[in-house]
C-alpha cells in the first residue's frame, strides 16, 4: 500500500512564526503536491514538484514556499504565519502523468495560527 505521512496531525502556531510542514511518501513517486482545504472551497493547490529540487507554483502560492531535497520528502514552509493560513493542509504524491494520474493523500495537518 502507498503510504503518505505528514509530520503532525494538529499544529498551533503564533502569527509571524516560521512553520514547517513535512510530508514523506514511500512509493518512489516523482510527483508531490501540497494543498490546503477550506470548507466550501474544496482543495486548492499551493505548490507541486515533479522531481528533486524542482518546484512549481500552484493556484495559491502566496505566503508559502517549498523544499524538495530528497525524492521521498516534500516540505511546505510558511515564512511568516498569518491567521489567514489557518487551514487543513494535505500532501499528496503520484507517479508521472500517464493514462491515469491518481494521487495518494496523507492524513492532513490541521494548522491553527493565533
Amino acid at each position, binding site marked *: 500500500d502507498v503510504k503518505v505521512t505528514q509530520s503532525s496531525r494538529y499544529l498551533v502556531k503564533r502569527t509571524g512564526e516560521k512553520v514547517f510542514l513535512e510530508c514523506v511518501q514511500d512509493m518512489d513517486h516523482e510527483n508531490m503536491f501540497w494543498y490546503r482545504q477550506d470548507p466550501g472551497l*474544496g*482543495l486548492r493547490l499551493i505548490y*507541486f514538484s515533479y522531481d528533486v529540487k524542482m518546484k512549481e507554483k500552484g493556484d495559491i502560492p502566496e505566503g508559502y514556499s517549498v523544499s524538495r531535497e530528497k525524492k521521498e520528502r516534500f516540505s511546505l514552509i510558511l515564512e511568516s504565519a498569518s491567521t489567514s493560513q489557518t487551514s487543513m493542509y494535505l500532501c499528496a504524491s503520484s507517479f508521472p502523468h500517464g493514462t491515469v*494520474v491518481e494521487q495518494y*493523500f496523507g*492524513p492532513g495537518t490541521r494548522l491553527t495560527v493565533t
Partner: protein
Amino acid sequence: AQSVTQLDSHVSVSEGTPVLLRCNYSSSYSPSLFWYVQHPNKGLQLLLKYTSAATLVKGINGFEAEFKKSETSFHLTKPSAHMSDAAEYFCVVTPSSNTGKLIFGQGTTLQVKP
C-alpha cells in the same frame, strides 16, 4: 479551461435509501475523472476513476459513477446507503495540460440518517 462543479454542497439520505451525488465537468477534451472520499479527520481516499474505457465505473464500497459525455456529467451513485458512508465526497478532473495536476470540486457532504 477545465473545471468541475458539484451541484450539491450537502446531501442527506436515510440509511438503506439510494445515494446520488451530482458532478458536472467542463473540458475541451476527453478527461480523466475521479471521485474521492474523505471521512472525518482522515485523508482523501480514491473511490473510483474514469479513464475513457467503460462509461460505467465501479468503485469501492458499492459506489459507481457513469460518464455521460453528452451531459458532461459524472454522477456518483450507490443503491443503498450505510451509516459508514457519511463523509465528504470530491469530484475531480484532470486538466488538459496533463501535468499530473488535479482540479477538485467544492465537495459534497453526505449525511446518512438512521
